[in-house]
């Protein structure tokens, strides 16, 4: 319990650090951010938009610390300002409409990569130096060496354009309206294949190697020798004895990689014009929509922190040693 409270405290500090970063970044820019943006969009901003901006950046004459406290207060009320590129929609609304797609894409590919990668790692470690162990790791390292977005473009070119098997972009076909129908779900799934596939391809190698290496260390333990001596079935020793104990580092990496998935999804979403918040983050940056940019960054961070806390809770249940230390 003390452990979890300590962790919770850490996450709160981390989140506070992000809010602070978000608050000071536009103020560190040379010049007044609002006039800078105003000049960059060639004065196409309406007066009410300028007002919204001034309010967000606290460019009224209050002292900095008052603006800062007001900013934090607004964040906790879920008020992240007004989006400029989608004026007058509030930032929270824009994010709410899109975060689901990122969770779908990131979640699906992470789960597939973790399960498949760990399974391959277990098998590779169990059969040291055999085909799986000697061919897969270098091959996967090589595939993982390609930039995310490049593999995504290659897959898009091959399966989307040349072969025409799968859709090129977006999360579902135009003209189809979201509904809980078989047609819609099937359409979404088909649109998910290529982006998810590229993320899985790039990340699976890390999972496999990590699992392989801890598994090799585990199989050298005495209790494995003991299990063998007892004449237990190899499959039982492999999964119930060795893999179960080698899983722990994977749980930690799972938490760590949550942030990575959002990051990887950002590039993949961009290539496939997938309507997640990663893609939206980029569009908002290009549109100089600073309120939306900051809101998305905070949301992603909050999501990653929350997910990590969840992993911490699971970890405490899995590894009793954590509770003691």
């Amino acid at each position: 319990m003390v452990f979890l409270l300590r962790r919770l405290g850490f996450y709160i500090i981390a989140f506070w650090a992000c809010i602070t970063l978000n608050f000071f970044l536009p103020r560190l820019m040379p010049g007044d951010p609002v006039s800078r943006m105003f000049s960059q969009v060639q004065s196409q901003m309406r007066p009410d938009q300028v007002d919204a901006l001034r309010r967000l950046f606290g460019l009224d004459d209050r002292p900095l610390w008052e603006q800062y406290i007001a900013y934090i207060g607004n964040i906790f009320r879920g008020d992240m300002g007004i989006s400029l590129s989608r004026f007058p929609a509030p930032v929270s609304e824009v994010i709410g409409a899109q975060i689901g797609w990122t969770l779908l894409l990131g979640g699906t590919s992470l789960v597939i990569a973790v399960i498949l990668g760990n399974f391959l790692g277990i098998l590779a470690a169990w059969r040291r130096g055999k085909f799986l162990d000697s061919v897969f790791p270098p091959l996967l390292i090589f595939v993982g060496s390609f930039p995310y977005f490049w593999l995504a473009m290659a897959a898009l070119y091959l399966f989307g354009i040349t072969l025409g098997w799968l859709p090129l972009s977006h999360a579902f076909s135009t003209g189809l309206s979201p509904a809980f129908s078989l047609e819609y779900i099937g359409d979404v799934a088909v649109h998910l294949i290529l982006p998810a596939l590229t993320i899985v391809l790039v990340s699976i190698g890390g999972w496999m190697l990590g699992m392989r290496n801890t598994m090799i260390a585990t199989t050298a333990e005495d209790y494995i020798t003991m299990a063998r001596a007892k004449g237990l079935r190899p499959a039982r020793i492999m999964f119930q004895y060795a893999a179960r104990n080698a899983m722990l580092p994977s749980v930690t990496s799972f938490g760590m990689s949550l942030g990575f998935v959002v990051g990887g999804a950002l590039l993949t979403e961009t290539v496939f014009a997938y309507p997640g918040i990663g893609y939206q983050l980029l569009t908002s940056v290009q549109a100089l929509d600073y309120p939306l940019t900051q809101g998305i960054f905070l949301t992603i961070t909050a999501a990653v922190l929350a997910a990590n806390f969840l992993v911490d809770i699971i970890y405490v249940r899995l590894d009793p040693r954590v509770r003691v230390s």
Partner: protein
Amino acid sequence: MSLTDSTPTASTTAGNPTVQVPEPPVPGRLVHGGFVHGILTNKKALFGLAVLVVFALLALLAPLLAPGNPSDFGPEASLAPSANHLLGTTSKGQDVLALTLWGSRSSLTVGFIVGIAATFIGCLVGIASAYFGKAIDELLSLLTNIFLLIPGLPLLVVLAAFLPPGPATVVVVLVITGWAGSARVLRSQALSLRSKDFVAAAVVTGEKAWRIMFREILPNMASIVMSTLLGCVIYGIGAQAGLEFLGLGDTGSVSWGTNLYWANNDGALMTGDWWVLLPSGVAIAVVAFALALINYAVDEITNPRLRVEKKG
């Protein structure tokens, strides 16, 4: 606590374990020699090194191999690879081979600068954290963990969006987002060295803190620093490419990332000009793979359990 009580452990405290030793033994030198030998006899490492040397040469010789400004538009647009243009041309008539050769300069330079800087900060934070312990460790670890947890690419995007554009910004942004991982790894390694006798000996002899950290502890971490450096260089090259692909880097420069940005921007994918997209992506992958192979070899050399036993 008397120093002579401490029994010399393994080779780390080779030499005379008394206070009167004028020159503290520099541990790790032996380990280091074995390490270099290990690298030079490891097939994976040799292959990786060879690939790196080839790329470094190509980057250095770019002005000779492909004279002129590679970004200049030419009359022959969207040509498939041929004898005249070995890798074809872009839709603006630029020679893809020239772009790729010149691109290697920026990509390799930024990759290595970012890698070295991020590793350096990682060393500094990690070793200081382990050496001083207590409040400093708490503070530095907190900082490290925060940076580790903040999703990297979104932070990259936000930073790149707010900072004035330019090559220096790219490097600064990549170092800010890249050092934390190495700090964490190096801290845990330094922590185990901190409790070794030779460090205690140095502390009692009144060595300066920075001297103990960098002359006593650091040399013993050579292999892990090396592997961290390789990882950071891979990160630097890949992240620069990603940032530039998104159009957030220095779009005026020629690098593998900007090559891919322009290729995508000019619709190379849709028009089927695959040769414009292929070289820069493959170059990034091959360099990253070469670095990863060396890294893999470092792991094998330092962790014998990962080596596949040779038969016979």
